[in-house]
């Protein structure tokens, strides 16, 4: 199984994300934002955290228009898997792969700490290794994680079981305590918490490993 991790100027979780994919058993290709194609045979595209393009204009807005963006959109349109974490979540919402937008945290502060999350849906390729309603602990590190969507959109996400993760105690004002959302075909996940920072018991625990092992298991079945 092959993962591609994209690096934008200002990405800073790209290596951690590549290591997390490798740790789970993926072959990983590193892709530069100026590339226009993904390597052949890529199953999942990882869009990492960081501060792409210095968060200029809006978080993720400029990265979403970079040369590689077209290939990522095509990959998703063909039913490929995409995992956007933190700034990557902001990038893929700006790309239009997921509805809604990440606004400034309601408390206006950058928040960097571990938080408890509830697995709101284990029925996804990214969360199947967890039990439904399981509580896990993952680090968050963001200034703009306040998930915002119109009332109809929120009802739709909830009605279609597309909220993958919720905060146990809402840190940033996100509507519906949403920490991670799925696309309609459930193959795109955007999440603010950092599972790639929690795949090794020696540093940060292992609660994030399930995201990667879920994906690998899903692909092995396919």
């Amino acid at each position, binding site marked *: 199984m092959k993962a591609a991790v994209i690096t934008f100027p200002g990405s800073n979780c790209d290596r951690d994300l590549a290591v997390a994919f490798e740790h789970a058993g993926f072959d990983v290709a590193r892709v530069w934002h100026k590339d226009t194609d993904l390597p052949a045979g890529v199953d999942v595209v990882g869009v990492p955290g960081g501060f792409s393009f210095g968060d200029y204009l809006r978080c993720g*807005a*400029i990265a979403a*228009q970079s040369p590689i963006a077209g290939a990522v959109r095509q990959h998703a349109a063909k039913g490929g898997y995409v995992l956007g974490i933190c700034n990557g979540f902001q990038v893929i919402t700006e790309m239009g792969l997921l*509805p809604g*937008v990440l*606004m*400034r*945290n309601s408390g*206006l502060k950058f928040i960097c700490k571990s938080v408890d999350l509830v697995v709101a849906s284990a029925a996804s390729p990214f969360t199947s290794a967890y039990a439904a309603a399981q509580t896990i602990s993952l680090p968050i590190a963001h200034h703009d994680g306040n998930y*915002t969507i119109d009332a109809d959109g929120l009802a739709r996400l909830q009605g279609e079981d597309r909220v993958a993760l919720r905060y146990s105690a809402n840190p940033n004002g996100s509507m519906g305590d949403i920490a991670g959302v799925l696309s309609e075909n459930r193959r795109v996940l955007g999440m603010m918490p950092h599972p790639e920072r929690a795949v090794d018991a020696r540093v940060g625990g292992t609660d994030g490993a399930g995201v990667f092992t879920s994906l690998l298991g899903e692909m092995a079945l396919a």
Partner: protein
Amino acid sequence: MKARVTVMLKAGVLDVQGEAVRHALGSLGFAGVNGVRQGKVIELDLAETDAAKARASVTAMCDKLLANVVIESYQIEIL
């Protein structure tokens, strides 16, 4: 030809930064500030000389990049 784009959060979207500015003004003693909305102004220097074409082009720029129309609205002035 120059264009000025003003991007604001849509009515109904909570502007947490605007609220923080409102509180700060209050604590500085400026009474009676009932609301603050914060946005951004983007000035463009365009090669285009036809105002209608410039407006059409800047509208496309706003929809594609300069504003996120999920939460933001924009106004274009051709100068």
